[in-house]
């Protein structure tokens, strides 16, 4: 009887513990959201989106160049990373049954785990050193290296989810294999693939370390891919460690804008994800 009571007590305790841990997990998200919103919302104004940064000491100014720079870096990184990741994913899903593809799969997972600062060094050596200066292109190359393994594995996963019956139906109509993939398999997974790509975009949007010594930073407008440019994550980093109160204020605003962007991409990706049309 006593033993039974003890068991019940332990069970209740453990149940309470799992609940507390769950609460901790989700509350950290809401804490970050709330804290950013609290500090950021007061600093966001029209100037923030339309003006260039002011020199230290002057009040006001915005991060228009960093917002545009981030957009350009992310766009270019997606432009490089998406086709490479997509086609490699198609290879793994549709052609990869041998030892080689096992190696590719494993290497992709390893690449996914490489610390982003190391990827930054890689892009520095690959692009910055030969060109002799920082550039948007270098930042995009760094981010695309992060983009590719994510795109590869999501593409492979979503194509594997396409029922084998679609492949057979296309082949039985006399489609060569590549055509069956292009016209039956990929379209069937299209919205799932779009979701995967968007999540990869959201993932690279917040990366800071690889940009520090690739796209670097810039006080002015610079949309040429061959020039260094400001970007939101780097601006947050620079402004947050600066001694100026007004810069801290702007760093909060930039953090809020970046988080809102990532959340927006994430949520639209989830909405795009199809209700399972095929059984």
């Amino acid at each position, binding site marked *: 009887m006593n033993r039974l009571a003890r068991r019940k007590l332990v069970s209740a305790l453990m149940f309470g513990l799992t609940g507390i841990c769950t609460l901790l997990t989700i509350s950290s998200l809401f804490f970050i959201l709330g804290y950013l919103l609290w500090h950021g919302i007061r600093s966001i104004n029209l100037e923030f989106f339309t003006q260039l940064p002011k020199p230290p000491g002057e009040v006001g100014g915005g991060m228009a160049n960093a917002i545009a720079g981030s957009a350009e870096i992310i766009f270019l990184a997606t432009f490089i990373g998406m086709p490479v990741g997509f086609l490699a994913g198609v290879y793994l899903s549709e052609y990869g049954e041998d030892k080689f593809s096992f190696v590719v799969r494993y290497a992709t997972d390893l690449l996914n785990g490489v610390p982003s600062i190391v990827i930054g060094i890689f892009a520095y050596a690959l692009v910055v050193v030969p060109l002799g200066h920082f550039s948007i292109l270098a930042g995009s190359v760094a981010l695309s290296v992060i983009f590719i393994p994510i795109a590869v594995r999501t593409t492979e996963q979503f194509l594997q989810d396409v029922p084998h019956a679609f492949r*057979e*139906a296309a*082949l*039985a*109509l*006399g489609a060569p294999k590549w055509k069956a993939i292009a*016209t039956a398999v990929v379209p069937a997974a299209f919205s799932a693939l779009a979701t995967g790509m968007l999540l990869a975009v959201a993932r690279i949007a917040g990366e800071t370390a690889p940009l520090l010594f690739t796209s670097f930073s810039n006080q002015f407008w610079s949309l040429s891919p061959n020039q260094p440019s400001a970007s939101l994550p780097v601006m947050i980093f620079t402004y947050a460690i600066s001694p100026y109160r007004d810069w801290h204020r702007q760093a909060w605003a930039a953090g809020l804008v970046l988080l809102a962007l990532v959340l927006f991409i994430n949520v639209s990706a989830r909405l795009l994800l199809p209700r399972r*049309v095929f059984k």
Partner: protein
Amino acid sequence: MTAAAKTKSSAVEPHAAALAQTAQKLTVSHLNFFYGMHQALYDVSLEVEANRITALIGPSGCGKSTFLRVLNRMNETVKGSRAEGSVFLDNDNIFDLDITLLRRRVGMVFQKANPFPKSIFNNVAYGLRINGLCSRWELSGAVENSLRRAALWDEVKDQLHKSAYALSGGQQQRLCIARALAVNPEVLLLDEPSSALDPIATSKIEELLFQLKRSCTIVVITHNMQQAARISDRTGFFLLGRLVEINETATMFRNPSRTETEDYITGRFG
């Protein structure tokens, strides 16, 4: 004397005259098939007659599906599979034909309806498009024609741009038949096309096959003995990877020459 001899021989083989007239669409000789080390078909030889329905029966795992999938070389998608022997489609050995050309001539309908997640129109047009037909006008003519041949036109003509998944199971299967017919195959292979359908949808498919044999040679696998008896002209019985017997359906069901066949069709096993 000669006349008497003739009469006698035609009494013994009532189908001899008919057989002489029907062309052999497919001629399979000494076909062995392997999945890796496992042999799935043993020395199968048979002829499929043009514009007739050939039914293949036999217990699960007897090799009839494997056999069917050899005829359009769908089995080659299985890694490590291998065929020995020859299969002639008219005068061409199918193993020498380009695989895509072969599959355009020998269409296939699967056990479970597998329309693409596209509109009804685009499902039927699929085979034409991948073969390079793009003109809207020609496509819609061909799509209508195929849907009519599959006895589906009247049911879907006002909703061609709806998703194929809006159709019932039986309609989906007829849509798959229409999709296969669109590329004008000479032979249509069907792997238990009505096993997932209710009796009404099944009878529609059966009627349809009956209509289709005028323009097409049909090979159909069925688990349903009554279905084989109802629709087919000839029936082949597979057991353990071997073709036990193939004959005119009437003969096969009334007077099978092998005891295994008789045991199976009378339900003593399988």
